[in-house]
């Protein structure tokens, strides 16, 4: 419990660490989401090109 309380600064300390975790996770998620979107778009474009050929 002492660790959670952080000498009565627990709300400040844990909020800061929680926000940091959220920002890091959002960055990781955005990297993966963008990768799959771009890859999928290119696949669709190539298939359309092949069908036209």
């Amino acid at each position, binding site marked *: 419990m002492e*660790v959670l309380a*952080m*000498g*009565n*600064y*627990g709300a*400040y*300390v844990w*909020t*800061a*660490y929680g*926000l*940091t975790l959220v*920002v*890091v996770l*959002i*960055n*990781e998620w*955005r*990297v993966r989401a*963008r*990768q799959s979107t*771009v*890859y999928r*778009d*290119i*696949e669709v*474009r*190539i298939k359309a090109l092949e069908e036209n050929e």
Partner: protein
Amino acid sequence: MWKWFHQLASPPHFYRIAPVFSAWLMVPGLALIAYGTYAGLILAPVDYQQGDAFRIIYVHVPSAYLSILSYMILAVAGGIGLIWRIKLAHAVAASAAPLGASFTFLALVTGSIWGRPMWGTWWEWADPRMMSELILLFFYFGYMALRSAIDDTNKADKASAVLALVGVINVIIVHYSVVWWSSLHQGQTLMAEGGPAMDPGMLYPLLAMIFGFNLLFGSLLLRRTRTEVLFRERRTRWVREMILSREGQS
């Protein structure tokens, strides 16, 4: 050496090797962050003035470092792309912007959370460090808005690179603001004359967090740049062959 750099700047080569470097950065980065978080929250002694609130530095300082480092990468890459017309450099700059903006936001918010119990205020409009860091965030937003406002990638690259170079002036102000002006923000600690003015029990977790965040940032930047390269090269033969060969394998 030049041959290696020249090869690295080739989009297909970069696309192939980026995941390897990304993994090399990610694994030690996460290990350092895990150690730094544990040591910073549990092992480091309580600060005699700030109490346990000082532990916010273990996320605030690495974020603040990355906000500046990311902008310098953005500006240098933009400058290289502008002068030598290296396509990969513009892709690096474009990829660094959202990452830098997120860490600048984090530095501002964690700094504000730290400031409330220490200074008695969430924000001080007259403080040069806080204001220059906020302006840095606006430079990131401006850079990204300018890029997305111009449809032609080449024109967007050039215009945003010029804006990025102008913003370097603000980065210098961010760094030296606590030296040049009177500020609520504390002065330089790690780069203080005569070495870091910190107890080793507090310093080592902080260094671990700074290096860990830098490695994690490097890994994220490599992967974002890899996707940016794929997007920019989407109409090229090597991308088509790569996608088709993967489909053939699956």
